[in-house]
C-alpha cells in the first residue's frame, strides 16, 4: 500500500469540511497512506475552509474520452461506470476501504453459506417517482445473468441458483455453491437496479436512456462533447444531492484539460496518464489526488490459436521471466503503479507480488526454458489497444525486456474494432499477445474468474483451460476467515503466475484534480470500481 505520488499534495482547503466525512467516517481511517494534509484531513489551510456546504450550482468535470455505453449490464469501460454511478444505484455499495456498505439494500442476512436475504431501504424511488420494489431488484439481477443480455458481469456474480422476491421489500438470492465475492459483485454499477416495469413495457430503453434511483438524472448527452446531469428531486436521501447538476465534458487532450483547470472553466479534471501529477504541478488552487484502483495492466498471450508457440507453458513462462516489472513501472508508468499478482495489489487480502513464480526477472532462465521447449528465434506481435496512452509505452518496454532474452517482439496498434475482433471475438483469437487492462473488482477472487475459460466465453478464445488453475480460482472464492481466504487467494496467484497465460504487470492509477476554490467534496484515494466521484451527492460548490 504505498503509492500516493511522491510529490507533496497541494494544501487542501475546502475539501476538508465535508459531509462525506461525516457520512463515511473519513477516508484516512485505515490502511491508506494519506499524507498530512491529504484527503479527509481537516486541518485546512485555505481561505475557503470556513465555507459551509450550500445547495445549488453546477459542477463541471472533464474526462478524456466519451462513451456510447448507457446500459450498466453491458458496459465494460470505467468511464461508463462513472457516468452511470450518477444515475444508478446498487444493492450494496463500497468505499475507499473496500468495505461493503448498504446501498438500496438497507441490510442483509445470510441464513446459510449459499443464501442471501436483502431488506430494501424504504422510500427509494426512481427519478420518475415510482417506488423501487423487490420486483425491480429481482428483474435487474435476472437480466444480468440471462445469457441473452450478453452481460460480461454474469460470471462475476457466481453460481446463482435463483433470485426471488420474498415480499415487496425483501429479496432472496440462492447460490448453488458458496461464493465469497457475491456481495462484492453486487457493488459494481454493472449490477445496478433498473426500473424493470418500464423496461419490460418498453417505455424505457436502457441503451439510449437512463432512469435510476441515484442522485442525478441524465438530461442530455451530446456525443463527444458533454453529459449533462440534473438533480433528481425524488432522491431518497433527504436534502441531497446538494448540487443542481453535473456537467461532464469530453476534453481529449491532457494539456488542454490542464489548461481548462488553470483558467477555471472546469472544476474537476480526471487524468489517466501516469504523468498527470507532473502535468498539474504548480497549477494554482488545484488539489491533486492520485487515486489507486484495483485496475491492473496485464499481458495476455494467446495459447489457443493454431500453431501458437504459447501452447507450451514453458514458452509462456520464458516470456514472464524475461519481463522487468521495475523497468516497466519506472519507465512506462512514471513510477505510478505497483507490481501485482492476478489478485489486484490494491485490494485488502490480495497476494503479494514479491516472490510469485516467474516474477523475479531471470533472462538466463527464460533462454533455458525456450531451449528446453525447442523454440529458437521466438518472434511475436503485441497488440496495443487504442484506448489508453499507457499501453504503447508498456509494450515498448516489454519489447526491450524480451529482446534481452532473444525474443523478438513487434508492436501493432490496430483500430478499436480490429482489436476487439482479434482478441475477444474471433474464436480462436487471432492475436499473439496484447497489453490490456482489467479492473480487479472489489474482491481479490473476482477478476481471476476470467482465467477459467471453460465457463467464460470472454477469454475462451485465447486462454487454455487448466484444471489446477481453475481449482485454485474456485478455492479462492470459497468463503472463510480473512486468513483462510488470503491463503487461498495467494495460492491462486501462484497458480496463475505459473500458468502465465495472462501475465499481470502492475496496477493502474488515476489522477483527479480539483479546483479547491470551487468545490467542496472529498476525492478518495482508492476506489475498487473506478468511481472517482463516489459520494457525488455530498459535493457542493463553494459560495463566496
Amino acid at each position, binding site marked *: 500500500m504505498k503509492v500516493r505520488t511522491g510529490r507533496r499534495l497541494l494544501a487542501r482547503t475546502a475539501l476538508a469540511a465535508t459531509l462525506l466525512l461525516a457520512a463515511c467516517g473519513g477516508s484516512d481511517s485505515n490502511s491508506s497512506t494519506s499524507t498530512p494534509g491529504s484527503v479527509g484531513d481537516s486541518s485546512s489551510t485555505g481561505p475557503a475552509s470556513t465555507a459551509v456546504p450550500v445547495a445549488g450550482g453546477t459542477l463541471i468535470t472533464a474526462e478524456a474520452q466519451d462513451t456510447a455505453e448507457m446500459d450498466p449490464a453491458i458496459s*465494460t469501460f470505467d468511464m461508463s461506470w462513472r457516468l452511470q454511478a450518477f444515475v444508478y444505484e446498487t444493492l450494496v455499495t463500497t468505499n475507499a476501504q473496500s468495505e461493503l456498505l448498504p446501498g438500496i439494500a438497507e441490510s442483509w442476512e445470510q441464513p446459510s453459506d449459499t443464501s442471501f436475504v436483502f431488506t430494501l431501504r424504504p422510500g427509494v424511488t426512481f427519478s420518475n417517482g415510482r417506488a423501487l420494489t423487490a420486483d425491480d431488484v429481482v428483474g435487474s439481477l435476472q437480466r444480468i445473468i440471462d445469457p441473452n443480455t450478453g452481460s*460480461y458481469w454474469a460470471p462475476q456474480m457466481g453460481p446463482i441458483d435463483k433470485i426471488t422476491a420474498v415480499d415487496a421489500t425483501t429479496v432472496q438470492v440462492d447460490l448453488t455453491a458458496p461464493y465469497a465475492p457475491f456481495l462484492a459483485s453486487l457493488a459494481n454499477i454493472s449490477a445496478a437496479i433498473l426500473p424493470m416495469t418500464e423496461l419490460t413495457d418498453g417505455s424505457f430503453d436502457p441503451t*439510449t436512456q437512463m432512469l435510476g434511483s441515484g442522485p442525478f438524472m441524465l438530461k442530455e448527452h451530446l456525443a463527444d462533447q458533454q453529459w449533462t446531469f440534473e438533480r433528481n428531486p425524488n432522491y431518497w436521501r433527504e436534502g441531497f444531492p446538494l448540487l443542481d447538476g453535473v456537467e461532464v465534458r469530453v476534453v481529449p*487532450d491532457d*494539456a*488542454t484539460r490542464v489548461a481548462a483547470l488553470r483558467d477555471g472553466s472546469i472544476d474537476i479534471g480526471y487524468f489517466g496518464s501516469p504523468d498527470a501529477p507532473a502535468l498539474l504541478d504548480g497549477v494554482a488552487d488545484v488539489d491533486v489526488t492520485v487515486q489507486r484502483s484495483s485496475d491492473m495492466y496485464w499481458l495476455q498471450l494467446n495459447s489457443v490459436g493454431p500453431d501458437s508457440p504459447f501452447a507450451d507453458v514453458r514458452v509462456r513462462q520464458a516470456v514472464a521471466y524475461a519481463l522487468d516489472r521495475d523497468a516497466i513501472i519506472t519507465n512506462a508508468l512514471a513510477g505510478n503503479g505497483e507490481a501485482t499478482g492476478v489478485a489486484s495489489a490494491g485490494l485488502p487480502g490480495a497476494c503479494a507480488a514479491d516472490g510469485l513464480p516467474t516474477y523475479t526477472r531471470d533472462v538466463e532462465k527464460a533462454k533455458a526454458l525456450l531451449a528446453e521447449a525447442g523454440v529458437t528465434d521466438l518472434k511475436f506481435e503485441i497488440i496495443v489497444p487504442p484506448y489508453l496512452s499507457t499501453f504503447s509505452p508498456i509494450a515498448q518496454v516489454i519489447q526491450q525486456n524480451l529482446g534481452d532474452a532473444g525474443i523478438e517482439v513487434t508492436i501493432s496498434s490496430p483500430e478499436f474494432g480490429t482489436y476487439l475482433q482479434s482478441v475477444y*471475438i474471433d474464436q480462436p483469437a487471432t492475436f499473439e499477445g496484447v497489453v490490456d487492462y482489467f479492473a480487479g473488482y472489489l474482491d481479490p477472487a473476482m477478476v481471476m474468474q476470467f482465467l477459467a475459460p471453460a465457463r467464460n466465453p470472454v477469454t475462451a478464445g485465447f486462454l487454455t483451460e487448466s484444471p489446477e488453475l481453475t481449482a485454485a480460482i474456485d478455492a479462492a472464492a470459497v468463503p472463510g476467515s480473512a486468513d483462510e481466504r488470503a491463503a487461498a487467494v495467494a495460492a491462486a496467484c501462484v497458480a496463475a503466475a505459473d500458468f502465465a497465460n495472462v501475465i499481470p504487470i502492475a496496477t493502474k492509477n488515476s489522477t483527479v484534480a480539483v479546483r479547491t476554490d470551487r468545490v467542496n467534496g472529498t476525492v478518495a484515494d482508492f476506489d475498487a470500481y473506478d468511481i472517482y466521484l463516489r459520494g457525488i451527492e455530498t459535493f457542493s460548490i463553494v459560495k463566496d
Partner: protein
Amino acid sequence: MSLARFLVVRLAGAIVTLLVVSMVVFAAIHNVPGGYEDVVLGPLATPELRAQTAEKYGLDQPIPVQYVKWLSAVVHGDLGTSMTSKTSVSSELARRIPATLELVLLALAFSLLAGVPLGIAAGLSSDSRFSRATSRLAGSLTMSIPDFVLGATLVYLFSVNSWWLRVGSYVGITEDLVGNIRSMVLPAFTLGLFGVAVIMRTQRDAIRGVLTQTFITAAVARGDAPRTIIRRNVIRNSSIPLVTIVAVLIGAFISGSVIVESLFSIPGIGVFFLNSVRNRDYAVVQAAVLLSATVFVVANMVADALYAVLDPRVGSTSAARGQK
C-alpha cells in the same frame, strides 16, 4: 458554350463526383475489419446478440443493397441514424456544423485579411533580390509549418502561461461571444496561417501577371496616375484568381479542421468524423465525408460560376483552364 450550359455541365459533373465519392467511402468503410456490432456491444456479447444487432441495422445484407438503401434515404433527406448515439445523423451533424463553420470562416477571413495586403505589397514592391528572397522565405515558412506542429506550440505557450486566449475550453458562439472569441482565435490562426501564404502568393503572382498586360501599358502611356492604375486596373483584375483559390482553401481547411479540432478540443465535424471512424459508425462517416465533399464541390462550382461572370472569356475557354 453559354454560361447556362456551362453551369449545367459543371453541376452534372459535381453530382457524378459526389456519387462516386459516396460509393468509394461506402465500400471502404464496410470492408474494414471489426464491425459496428463488435464495437458497440463490446467483447462479451453472444454471437446471437451480434447477429441480432447486425440485422437491426441491416448490416447483414450485401454491401450494394445497403448502399442503394442508404442512397435512396439520403435523396429523401434522411442521413440515417448514428449507431453510437442512436440519434439522427442530421441532428448530430447540425449540432457540430456551427463550430467547424466558424473555424473555417475565421481561418478564411484571417487568410484574406492578412494575405491580400501582403500579396499586393509583394506584387508592387521593387523587385530587389533581397525583397524577393524575404517574401519567398516568409511565404514558404508559413506554408511549411504543419498545422499540428503550430497548434502544439500554441497549446504549449498558452497552457503554461495565463494569457488571455484559451486552449481547450471551447465555448459556443451563442453561449458567450467573448468566451467564444477567446477559445477560437488560436485554432483559427493555426488553421489559417497556411492560407495566408497561399493567398499572398496568388495575389502577388496575379499582380505581377496583370502588370505585364497591355492595358496597363496603355494606361501608363495615357499618363494615368499610378495610384489610379493600381486601384482601378491592377487590384481589380488581379482579384479574379483569388476566387478560385478561396474554393481550394475551403477544401484544405475542412481537411485541416480534423487536426485543429482534435488539438484544441473543438466539438466539430472533424472530431466527429475521427471518432466515428474509430467507432465504425458507418452512417456518420458516410455523411461526414459526403458533407465535406459537397462543400468542396459546391465551393468549386461557385468559384467557376463567379469566374465565368467576372471574366467573360471563360465561357468559351473553360476547358483550357484545366479544371482549376
